[in-house]
């Protein structure tokens, strides 16, 4: 099967049916490893056991940004190629991205209070991450406001591409401005600055969360395709009753 064949929603549903059980099993397995490694990880020499919040905070931050990046690619698919699954992918991703961005902000606040002495500061990293969450809410609201999914897709695609400007701002905010948030310590040129004993469980959790995201996204895309089928059939039924 060529990759382009997956653009067909019916084929996608068949593929989703096949891969979802495997993805669920892989996600559970990855979380079993990740959570065990996180529990066994040593305390940080400065932060103590609060470093365990990092194993939730960093994967959530990664997924919040990754999800908007994925929506931006889907937006190009909608605007340039009118790919049949592009707007389905974008719509299904938005609530998942919002959930992980919220989790990133919440765990950040829980980590910040004992380490910085405050839950929140209006520094560049935190504020740009909050803007990302607000943009997710805006996109979800747009999907719900515009009744015709293909009209909504075009509006959302433009908003998504404009909003993608926030991604490099989040990433480089700690380099461009003085922030209370620590500088980049994982995904940076020259390699991570975190000790291996904490880095290994962190990557295990990043893999587990990413697998969870992929599983949820495929399942949500399947639901969205079914929703569009229901909508199409309801419209056919209404036309039949009118005639």
């Amino acid at each position, binding site marked *: 099967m060529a990759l382009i064949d997956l653009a067909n929603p019916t084929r996608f549903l068949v593929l989703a049916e096949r891969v979802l059980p495997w993805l669920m099993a892989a996600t559970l397995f990855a979380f079993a490893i990740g959570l065990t490694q996180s*529990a066994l990880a040593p*305390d940080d020499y400065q932060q*103590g*056991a*609060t470093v*365990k*919040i990092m194993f*939730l*905070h960093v994967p*959530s931050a990664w997924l919040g940004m990754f999800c908007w990046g994925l929506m931006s690619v889907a937006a190009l698919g909608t605007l340039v190629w009118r790919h049949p699954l592009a707007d389905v992918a974008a719509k299904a991703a938005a*609530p*998942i991205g919002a*959930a*992980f961005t*919220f*989790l990133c902000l*919440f*765990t950040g606040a*829980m*980590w910040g*209070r*004992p380490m910085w002495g405050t839950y929140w500061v209006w520094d560049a990293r935190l504020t740009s991450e909050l803007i990302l969450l607000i943009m997710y809410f805006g996109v979800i609201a747009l999907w719900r406001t515009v009744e015709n999914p293909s009209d909504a897709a075009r509006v959302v695609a433009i908003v998504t591409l404009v909003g993608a400007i926030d991604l490099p701002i989040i990433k480089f905010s700690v380099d461009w401005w003085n922030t209370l948030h620590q500088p980049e310590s994982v995904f940076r040129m020259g390699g991570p600055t975190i000790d291996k004993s904490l880095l290994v469980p962190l990557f295990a959790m990043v893999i587990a969360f990413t697998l*969870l995201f992929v599983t*949820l996204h495929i*399942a*949500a895309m*399947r*639901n969205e395709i*079914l*929703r569009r*089928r*229901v909508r*199409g*059939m*309801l419209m*056919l*039924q209404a036309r*039949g009753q009118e005639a």
Partner: protein
Amino acid sequence: MNLGPHAAFILVSYAAAIVVVVALITWVIVDFRAQRRALGDLEAHGVTRRSAEIKEPA
């Protein structure tokens, strides 16, 4: 496992993660069942998709 003096912050973070993940899983499952039920109801009332009608032999 000793979580130290800030145990409450760690436990609240993990509890929040569980709530968010369970909420996402529940949303996906409930939505899937709702769509499948709606499709089933429509098919039971004789409504078929346009593409399904085209594929049917005349």
